[in-house]
């Protein structure tokens, strides 16, 4: 059995996530008590599986299969745009923070069991050649043209392995 997640750890991670979110133009849910519950779930998953999978989704414990639901998940940005919050509601839009928008239930947009392999996007074909390959962050859509993607996405803090070859 894994160690219990302590209140201090939860506090620390909440502060870090808030700092990182604000730096990238994202916002944590202003309901801080609920955020703490979600972060406790994230930390529990990190202990259990080795990665902070979404606390409100069922992980199967295989990193490749759960990659799309590692927080921040690949569904966060479309859910923010459509519903004002991500699926678990850890992240919300600025309008929600300002009290101009309320958050209802965010329906699940992930296909049951995760995306199929065939759904994976292939890099687009271009006529002519680019001086550098273009990599795309699957979490936030950030693009960079260089030999390798960055270690950590400068916008959403997703790790290098969440980048795909775009062009």
């Amino acid at each position, binding site marked *: 059995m894994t160690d219990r997640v302590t209140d201090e750890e939860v506090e620390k991670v909440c502060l870090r996530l808030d700092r990182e979110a604000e730096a990238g133009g994202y916002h944590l849910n202003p309901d801080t008590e*609920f955020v703490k*519950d*979600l972060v*406790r*779930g*994230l930390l*529990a*998953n990190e202990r259990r599986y080795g990665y902070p999978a979404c*606390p*409100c*989704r*069922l*992980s*199967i*414990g295989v990193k490749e299969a759960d990659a799309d639901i590692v927080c921040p998940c690949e569904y966060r940005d479309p859910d923010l745009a459509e519903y004002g919050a991500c699926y*678990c*509601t850890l992240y919300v839009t600025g309008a929600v923070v300002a009290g101009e928008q309320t958050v209802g*239930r965010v*329906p*699940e947009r992930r296909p*049951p*069991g995760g995306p199929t392999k065939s759904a994976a996007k292939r890099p687009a074909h271009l006529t002519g050649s680019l001086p550098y390959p273009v990599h795309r962050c699957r979490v936030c859509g950030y693009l960079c043209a260089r030999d390798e993607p960055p270690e950590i996405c400068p916008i959403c803090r997703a790790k290098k392995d969440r980048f795909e070859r775009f062009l």
Partner: protein
Amino acid sequence: MDLIHVDGKKKGQILLYALSTCGWCAKTKDLLNTLGVEYDYLFVDQLPKDEMEKVYTEIIHRYNPMGSFPTLVINGKTIVGYQEDEIREALV
């Protein structure tokens, strides 16, 4: 599979499929406790892998094709997500 039983007022068959890490599942459980009804729940994420797959398949086929949590089954009627009004209404 080990259902966890919670005693209370009998309102029929109430089964909650939940995740131990999920805040919305916790809210749903709290609501059932507040309403004081008898129900069973299952933390699907805490099941051994083969059992988890079996239960998840059952959820998708019988109750909630999206396979999301919480999935609450009240006398055969499925309520997906923490929907306070719908849950209260189903348990009047």
